[in-house]
């Protein structure tokens, strides 16, 4: 019998690595410690020094507590380790340390700590966004339950308004990253032939800013809530109690995340592309991410500035938005919508990208008007900075300015229409495969068309005067964002999940689910268009009795919509986690370069970056976008 060699002791892991593994727990501890420190300093020191409200529930205490809790969370996660070691001039991380932080070695632990692998971050985004969308969706169910009767039945006016504000703000938070977060982060580097993002730590930061932002926002229910809705209009925001502080810090963190994400994506696309991949052959989804990233980068600072001013109003009694002190609520309206209108295109342009990216796969034809489609998205992006004052038509905007903003807003339907033409042209006389993602794309096109039509009435000054602040606006917004972006999100999940996880969620039940969600969505929001035209104001807990039948209709369809969304989540969890269904490497016979890679995608994507690129939609000849050479061994597990 051979002698058995004595087992060598495993090398001790350095303390820094062991701490990284507990990142999430340390982050939670850091956030609690940070909150307590900030709360104490804000409540006592600042309030005393500046002779402001020095009670323990003061705005200064809560705001500083929230801000430091976010900093403490990030510090616990390990985000300060690298900058501090640079400040002290310590050695740079070794290749082994970088590879560990990148997630080499696999394991589920990667998903709960600071990881710089864009693919891990993409999946982190997907899980978190679905979780928060679920919470926001539950809020919608409560809202529709309350509106079954014309008078308050379950909630009082204050808690109802908080519920509406929470639902809308949380959804806006998540919608801003719903497509770019999971799919932009996961696929953009792969689609451009890069091994990583330009700034991987920054990418991780953009993700890890979102959980504190969402939780800080949700914590408002424990401190009184806020009544402003997602737009946070002054002077109501100045008059609200400390619950408003959750909104301000949450939105501030989201603004930082959007801006940094934009910076990272643009730098990645412009500088990390494979040397032989020109902009003119980039997948159109990457183009949509590029356009969206510019919007985020240039619009988010306006929100951050506006939030900073409101924070000063609430803590040091400055008067930016207080008319009696020389300020003006219109200042908030202008700054907020300078961010807010590009923000809605931050939601929808990536959805355009998903639709145009997926259409050739299911029509088996080249994308019709690739360059025109890019032009349409760039046009939408440019015009989105010149339309924000249409939100102020009824708030006292100078009458002489109305025609310009009406014209610029109506003008934006031209590039949007061009994108529609590209989609329709791609389907023209094609033998369309009606797989599940294609059904959702069809749903997107139908819903977004109604969203676009209803938008024309709101850009038109005379009709906006009668429709503004009614359920018509609310229904229009949901048609574009839920009917548009969320349908594109569902298409993208079904389409990309096999590449991201190696598991497929496609099943005949998903097709039934599509029809359920499509019918109930339209039933809900057509009812709300009708109540809006009949004059029901939004965000009101009471309404005229004659509007009850339509409200019951909207509520019943909404409950069906909620159930069908839960159905989608249920299929996803069942087919990916509980009873995994393996997927093939190229589930949809796509020519895109991401589908030429093995599943799961290797840690650094490519050993040898592809050197010859074609347009990714050459379905006439069946030529793949690029030929992928050898790749590193695939990592086990998702």
């Amino acid at each position: 019998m051979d002698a058995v060699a004595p087992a060598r002791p495993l090398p001790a892991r350095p303390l820094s690595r062991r701490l990284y593994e507990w990142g999430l727990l340390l982050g939670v501890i850091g956030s609690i410690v940070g909150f307590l420190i900030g709360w104490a300093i804000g409540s006592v020191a600042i309030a005393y020094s500046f002779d402001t409200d020095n009670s323990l529930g003061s705005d200064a205490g809560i705001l500083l507590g929230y801000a430091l809790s976010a900093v403490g969370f990030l510090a616990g996660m390990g985000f300060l380790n690298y900058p501090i070691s640079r400040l002290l001039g310590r050695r740079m991380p070794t290749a082994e340390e970088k590879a560990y932080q990148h997630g080499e070695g696999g394991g589920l632990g990667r998903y709960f700590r600071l990881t710089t692998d864009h693919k891990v971050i993409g999946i982190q985004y997907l899980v978190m966004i679905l979780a928060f969308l679920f919470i926001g969706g539950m809020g919608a169910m409560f809202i529709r339950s309350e509106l079954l009767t014309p008078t308050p039945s379950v909630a009082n006016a204050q808690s109802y308004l908080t519920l509406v504000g929470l639902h809308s703000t949380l959804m806006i938070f998540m919608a801003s990253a719903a497509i770019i977060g999971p799919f932009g982060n996961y696929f953009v580097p792969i689609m451009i032939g890069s091994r990583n993002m330009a700034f991987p730590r920054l990418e991780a930061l953009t993700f890890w800013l979102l959980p504190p932002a969402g939780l800080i926002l949700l914590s408002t229910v424990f401190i009184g809530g806020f009544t402003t809705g997602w737009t946070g209009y002054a002077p109501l925001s100045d008059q609200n109690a400390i619950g408003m502080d959750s909104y301000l810090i949450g939105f501030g963190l989201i603004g930082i995340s959007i801006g940094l994400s934009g910076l990272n994506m643009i730098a990645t696309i412009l500088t990390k592309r494979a040397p032989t991949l020109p902009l003119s052959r980039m997948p159109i989804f990457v183009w949509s991410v590029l356009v969206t990233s510019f919007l985020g980068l240039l619009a988010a600072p306006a929100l951050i500035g506006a939030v900073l001013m409101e924070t000063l109003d609430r803590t040091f009694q400055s008067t930016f938005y207080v008319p009696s002190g020389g300020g003006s609520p219109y200042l908030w309206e202008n700054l907020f919508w300078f961010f807010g209108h590009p923000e809605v295109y931050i939601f929808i342009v990536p959805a355009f990208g998903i639709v145009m990216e997926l259409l050739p796969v299911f029509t088996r034809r080249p994308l019709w008007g690739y360059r025109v489609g890019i032009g349409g998205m760039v046009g939408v992006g440019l015009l989105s900075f010149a339309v924000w004052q249409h939100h102020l038509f009824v708030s006292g905007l100078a009458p002489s300015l109305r025609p310009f903003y009406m014209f610029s807003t109506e003008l934006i339907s031209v590039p949007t229409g061009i994108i529609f033409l590209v989609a329709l042209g791609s389907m023209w006389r094609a033998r369309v495969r009606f797989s599940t993602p294609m059904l959702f794309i069809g749903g997107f096109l139908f819903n977004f068309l109604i969203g676009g039509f209803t938008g024309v009435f709101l850009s038109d000054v005379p009709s906006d005067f009668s429709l503004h602040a009614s359920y018509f606006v609310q229904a229009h917004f949901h048609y574009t964002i839920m009917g548009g972006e969320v349908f594109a999100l569902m298409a993208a999940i079904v389409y990309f999940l096999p590449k991201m996880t190696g598991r497929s969620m496609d099943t005949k039940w998903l097709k039934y689910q599509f029809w359920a969600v499509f019918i109930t969505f339209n039933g809900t929001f057509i009812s709300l268009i009708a109540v809006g035209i009949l004059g029901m104001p939004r965000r009101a807990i009471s309404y005229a009795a004659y509007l009850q039948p339509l409200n019951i209709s909207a509520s019943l369809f909404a409950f069906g919509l909620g159930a069908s969304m839960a159905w989608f989540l249920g299929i996803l969890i069942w087919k990916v986690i509980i009873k995994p269904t393996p997927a093939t490497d190229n589930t949809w016979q796509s020519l895109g370069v991401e589908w030429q890679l093995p599943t799961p995608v290797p840690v650094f994507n490519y050993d040898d970056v592809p050197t010859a690129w074609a347009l990714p939609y050459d379905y006439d000849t069946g030529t793949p976008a690029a030929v992928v050479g050898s790749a590193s061994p695939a990592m086990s597990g998702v």
Partner: protein
Amino acid sequence: MTDLPTIGPGHATDPAEPSRTLTVGSRLVLGANTTLQLTFLFAFLYLRANNFAGGWNPGGVSGPPEVLALVALLAPVVALVALWAVSNAMKRGAARSSVNGLLWLAFAFVVLTGAIRIFLMYQFGSAWNLQNGTYIDVSVAWYGVILAEFILAGLWTMSLVMGHVRGASPITTAQSRALVEQWSYITVVAFAVYALVEFVT
């Protein structure tokens, strides 16, 4: 398939890529910063033009302490000259040790800039209370934002200086150029804001 020239395998590491990424990233930061500065410019001009309820500058407060404000503008200019000298030396391919002195000099003025601007805000005095009208509100908030930017740029300078002098990560030409760009931008904004706050009360 494509008529583009192909190159051999293993070309993934382009030596110029990190510099290019840093340069593009730095310019993008300037773009985002421009929107932030325009936000404050809009607030300043909007509130001044409308003077709601006569609340723009009811106390007739004049600009910040003049001598100190000018010194606070001079310090970043001197720091900028030193940073520019570092950048030029890097471009000429100077030896690592030969730029140490210049880096320390630049860092000293960067620290001085932060200290003077903190002192300036402290010296705004009781008339510059945030409850004394929107002229004070916008000006103090804007000076605060510029101070925060000088501090962030200062921290970046510190990380580059420490990495260089301790040999952990010698400063590169792209880094020195990006630092000069950022510092120049903030200095120019500081001058513009000073002029606006001083002369457009």
